[in-house]
């Protein structure tokens, strides 16, 4: 069976290998050059105005290609390796050849999945390692490793994504029995799952840290004209290599301050800026120094409460998310293998076969039985205890 699995997988595997070698050469050569530039400006001690910009601007076009490359790679593996694995056999009818040899369907599926799945994991792991290596100098300067866009395209999570996309493709192929619809379903399902996990699951995988920060001029703090009048607005503060999940303006008792409370406070503390006569964006109170001193006065009453994932959560989060996707992949493969395998035939109760008055004329669709579903029998749930 191993030879058969390899023979059928050989062409896509060699095509992918060719593309991958080209990709690896490109990444290695440009990555080495990027390191030269990085070292020539003093590495992490680069001059923020001149040297660092040279690194950041280096190979900007390639940087913009590499980032999404790791985003789409798992989806491609799922679409081109996973989806056809079963769908093509079902679509072209060759399952009738494959499944009537002396190997059980489950074994046939599991060997093929093991080979394709292992290759998908390896490709994703290597690609992710290459991209992470390429970006290392830039990441060192940018210090945003836990930001969703960076987190998903570095480290080991791509391995989990690839395994999941591959398994999703296999399962979609078994369900839809056609290659193209299975590929489309794989793409949509994968993108939806990725988005859902990134924004709904990942923030809660580990308990977020909280920090109280003073309002600081120049740290994303500004004024906002709202329906209640002029209030303070606080953007996300910069915490190196952390992922800021939410920010709130609170008083010293840690109570959240609403915009009307903030307006009242601001009007009391800095009447020139937010008093009854002040207009947003106009008047003497809006000068830089006036605003700064106002902020200083307000910060005695207001603080910024930040919920964030700290840099120390980077690898635990990577491992958790990888494990979640790989577990989902295993579940998908398990479900597909279970549905594909044979279950013992249901034995009719005596006289049961006479209650089929709804049976339509069996001869109404010539040849239709050939295309009828063979794998998925929703009314038959019993498991087979099949031999080796």
């Amino acid at each position, binding site marked *: 069976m191993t030879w058969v699995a390899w023979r059928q997988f050989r062409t896509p595997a060699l095509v992918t290998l060719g593309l991958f070698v080209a990709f690896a050469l490109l990444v290695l050569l440009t990555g080495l050059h990027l390191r030269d530039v990085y070292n020539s400006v003093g590495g992490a001690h680069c001059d923020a105005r001149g040297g660092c910009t040279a690194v950041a601007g280096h190979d900007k076009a390639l940087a913009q290609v590499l980032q999404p490359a790791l985003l789409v790679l798992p989806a491609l593996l799922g679409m081109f390796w996973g989806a056809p694995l079963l769908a093509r056999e079902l679509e072209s009818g060759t399952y009738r050849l494959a499944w009537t040899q002396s190997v059980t369907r489950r074994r046939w599926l599991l060997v093929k999945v093991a080979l394709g799945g292992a290759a998908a994991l390896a490709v994703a792991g290597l690609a992710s390692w290459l991209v992470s290596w390429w970006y290392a100098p830039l990441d060192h300067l940018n210090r945003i490793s836990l930001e969703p866009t960076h987190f998903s395209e570095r480290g080991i999570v791509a391995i989990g994504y690839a395994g999941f996309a591959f398994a999703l493709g296999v399962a979609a192929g078994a369900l839809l029995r056609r290659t193209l619809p299975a590929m489309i379903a794989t793409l949509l399902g994968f993108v939806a799952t990725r988005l859902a996990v990134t924004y709904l699951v990942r923030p809660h995988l580990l308990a977020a840290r909280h920090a109280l920060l003073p309002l600081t001029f120049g740290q994303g703090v500004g004024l906002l004209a709202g329906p209640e009048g002029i209030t303070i607005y606080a953007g996300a503060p910069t915490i190196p290599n952390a992922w800021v999940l939410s920010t709130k303006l609170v008083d010293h008792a840690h109570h959240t301050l609403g915009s009307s409370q903030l307006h009242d406070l601001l009007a009391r503390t800095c009447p020139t800026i937010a008093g009854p006569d002040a207009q947003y964006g106009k008047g003497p109170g809006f000068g830089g120094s006036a605003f700064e001193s106002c902020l200083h006065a307000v910060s005695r009453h207001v603080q910024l409460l930040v919920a964030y994932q700290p840099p120390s959560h980077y690898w635990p989060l990577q491992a958790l998310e990888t494990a979640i996707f790989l577990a989902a992949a295993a579940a998908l493969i398990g479900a597909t293998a279970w549905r594909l395998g044979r279950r013992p035939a249901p034995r009719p109760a005596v006289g049961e076969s006479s209650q089929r008055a709804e049976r339509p004329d069996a001869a109404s669709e010539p040849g239709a039985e050939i295309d009828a579903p063979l794998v998925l029998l929703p009314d*038959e749930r019993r498991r087979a205890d099949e031999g080796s």
Partner: protein
Amino acid sequence: MSAALATRRLGKRFGRRWALSGCTLQVPAGRVVGLVGSNGAGKTTLLHLAVGLDEPSEGTIAVLGEEVAGASSQLSRVGFVAQDTPLYPALSVEDHLRLGAALNPGWDATLARDRVRQLALDPRQRAGTLSGGQRAQLALTLATAKRPELLVLDEPVASLDPLARREFLRSLMEFTAEHAVSVVLSSHLIADLERLCDYLVLLAEGQVQLAGDADELLASHRRISGPRRDSARLPANQQVVEESHTERQSTLLVRTDEPIIDPAWEVAEVSLEDIVLAYMRPDARPAADGKAPKAGR
């Protein structure tokens, strides 16, 4: 010796449609069984159930004395040539033989090699570029080199030209002559079956209409014609399968195990094709050993 194929109240439903229902059948081993029926009669469904590609919605099916369960030991005892003889188009003839060898413990490499040489197939040629006849022959090679005890073929010659059809059937006959093997072969070409098969099963609308030894069927059916007469007034041991009446004359196809002695009748022998066509008519009465009542019509 256990039956090559035995079903009991076998039914298969696709959605709301019953492709096969109430099918009870015993096919003896060591025979070449022809499975006939019009398109959509349930032939493919029955064969898919027999080789384990499909699972019954009700009833049971056993091949070679063992209930079909998709186990490896059972799969290795049954060879299958599916309709339109599916092969992997990108794989060469040689690859297909390697595939067969890798997937079947009882693979007969000598038989496979000899067959390919005999057919003058280029081992390096891709299956996708083979002619229809060559594809069918390669599919038959795969199924036979597995050395099955039961060989199941689903319309193997339906899409072949007459010459390729004859070659294919000759290959099949050679194999059955050399090896002790039971064969179930479906076709809607009755002439092919007449030469090849010694047992006949007729399906119509998902049910067994007729099943029996070919010679017995031939011996027990007669076409009788004579002056017009009501078929209900025939002796009890003469079962009317088909009747047609003109103003003055009646022509009947009857099944009987006893000689027809009424001097008013002109009695003629019938061919297997005549019998099959008579039973295929929608108003025909089933006669699967006289035991399969037709349900729900």
